[in-house]
């Protein structure tokens, strides 16, 4: 793991954001946490395509807003601050999310200001 500051570690543990140098599947993120999509890679091509069509594309900023009341499933995720999508955890895990502003990650797609709220 790359070095990260104590503050970032704390943020990561609290689940507020994805810490620098870490990646995690979107299904593991807690409500309120934000991050940038690094990869969309369903084992299933159909799922990958469906996710891409709903806007889950590499480089997009996402924020997990809500979990369902039963077994914390499904998730409500906001994409690029404009569209909110509900999806089940198993599909959400096909989306790999990294920290929002990690310069080491080549996104090459967006340069939107997408600060955590």
């Amino acid at each position, binding site marked *: 793991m790359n070095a990260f500051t104590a503050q970032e570690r704390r943020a990561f543990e609290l689940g507020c954001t994805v810490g620098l140098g870490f990646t995690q599947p979107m299904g593991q993120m807690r409500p309120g946490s934000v991050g940038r999509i690094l990869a969309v890679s369903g084992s299933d091509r159909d799922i990958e395509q469906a996710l891409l069509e*709903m806007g889950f594309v590499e480089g997009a900023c996402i924020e997990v807003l809500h979990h369902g*009341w039963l077994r914390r499933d*499904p998730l409500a995720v906001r994409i690029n601050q404009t569209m909110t999508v509900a999806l089940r955890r198993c599909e959400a895990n096909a989306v790999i999310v990294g920290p929002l502003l990690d310069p080491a990650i080549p996104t090459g797609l967006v340069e939107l200001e997408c600060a955590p709220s």
Partner: protein
Amino acid sequence: MTVGTLTVEGLKSARIALVGPPNSGKTTLFNTLTGGRQKTANYPGVTVERKSGLLRTPDGHSVEVLDLPGSYSLRARSPDEAITRDVVLGRHQQETLPDAIVCVTDATNLNQHLRLLLELRPLGRPLILALNMMDIAQKRGCRIDLEALSRELGIPVVTTVAMQKSGVQALLGQIDVLLRQRSASDAVRTIDGWQEPSPDAIRAYHREVERVLRQAVVDEGIPARFTRQVDRVLLHPVAGPLILLALLFLMFQAVFSWAATPMEWIDGGVVSLQQWLNAHMEESLLKSLLVDGVMAGVGGVIIFLPQILILFLFILLLEDSGYMTRAAFLMDRLMSAAGLNGRAFIPLLSSFACAVPGIMATRAIAHPLDRLVTILIAPLMTCSARLPVYVLLIAAFIPNIPVWASIGLQGLVMFGLYATGIVGALVVAAVLRLTVLKGGRQPLLMELPSYKWPNPANVLLGLWDRVKIFMRRIGTIILSLMVILWFLSTFPTPPAGAVEPAIYYSFAGMIGRGLEPLLAPIGFNWQIAIALVPGLAAREVAVAALGTVYALSGDEGAVTEALSATLAQHWSLATALSLLAWYVFAPQCLATLAAVRRETNSWRWAAFMFVYLMALAYIAAFFTYRIALALGGG
């Protein structure tokens, strides 16, 4: 006059299609463009609605507008989206290629919505981009350089405010411009060489959207907080389900109490019409057909119209405001345990009033397998037509003794009947998912749109559509089934000096008596067997039929009261319980079967439903009867 010829020419050829992602305000735009002058039909083979209407452009052209089902991509994931793809590509058998496509996008969500436009652009058809909900985008401080956007995309761009008539002028003007240039593309019939975009192609489209928006968006504005704040409450892990529950309670209350008065009016109207016919027509077969067949049968179904209207009013309001997707979100985990989709929740709920609107409401479920499972279990929800039968039998056989506090045994039995239906439905759904309707679990990928006030015009037009569908069905298939049933219970007429009631000698009586040996193991006597035959039309008709079999007369209330006493005298407790168990499952409703046939477009599924429900009813009744006998209920 030149205008006249122009119009005729326009009618002959000009056709535009509205294409856009769900929640882009496409339907509102369609309603405004056509001013509510629209036709709803069905595409053959699938239950996808075909909505079309006429508009007049400033040049005086009359243009047919086609409202295609909302779709995020041309790669169709549901039958609805397949229609959109096929029409846009000119592959659809009933539709010729539209002269122009208007791509409707939500101006507040261009980031996600512009990709569909990029998929449409390579098709080479005349294309207009309509930035809808521009007023909302401007309120958020969003500024878009329309010229830059049009230049980068290479197609005309107009802004629209679909809620206002004046908000669509720019679009109408642009349609005229396209129609003037039309001649060149007229020869094209279909578009060849289209391929489903690969994942990498979709990624490339996203990158292109980013590039275009960087050029065209001057100011992004501040995203609205309203929907987020509301969702914080409505999707809250504790408050969310409670609010949903409260809303459902209100809905039920409305369906049962508000509808009571209009239902009485309809009932009164039908009865007085029957009395009028009784008084003014001579005793004849025609009179019997009209009074006992048509009026009694159709009246028994049309009485549910107020309930259906109120139910759909609620459903349309919830849909239009954006809450429906939240309800699906809250229920998805619970429903997916039985292999159902969160969206199946509302259709199943509707089925407590009547399975027919419930089955109609399954159209909201995109995936065909999910939808079919929902349709097949909808009749297991205890509909209001079962109530008269339940009430009659419970009053006759279950003593009204208190069990605990103010909860009585009768109420408990009633609750048990409802619960049995629900549990049965969930078990059946799970079994169907593992056997007949096997198939990959469909991912739930559902946009949670921003909340907005429901648009009254949208809601009223939607309501009117449902009424038309329901009335058309009553006028055709239900009417003919009622006539057949009347024929079976009337002919042949009883011989002279007959001792038994007339129905005993009819075909229905013969069928009933023929069924008696089959029904004896579950404790049904020949009277019940006969009453079950006309009871096929609608469940509550069985009560009237039992009255006929036991030769009771008088008005409805008196018959029910007398019947209760007669049944308590003639039947064993085991028989009554067995009949109750039978009624939880038995598919005794031709209207439901007709609805299933219409919505699945095949008699095969209607037959399948009939057979599986019959089998369940028989098994349930058999065990209830045997266990009750063993416990001394004989």
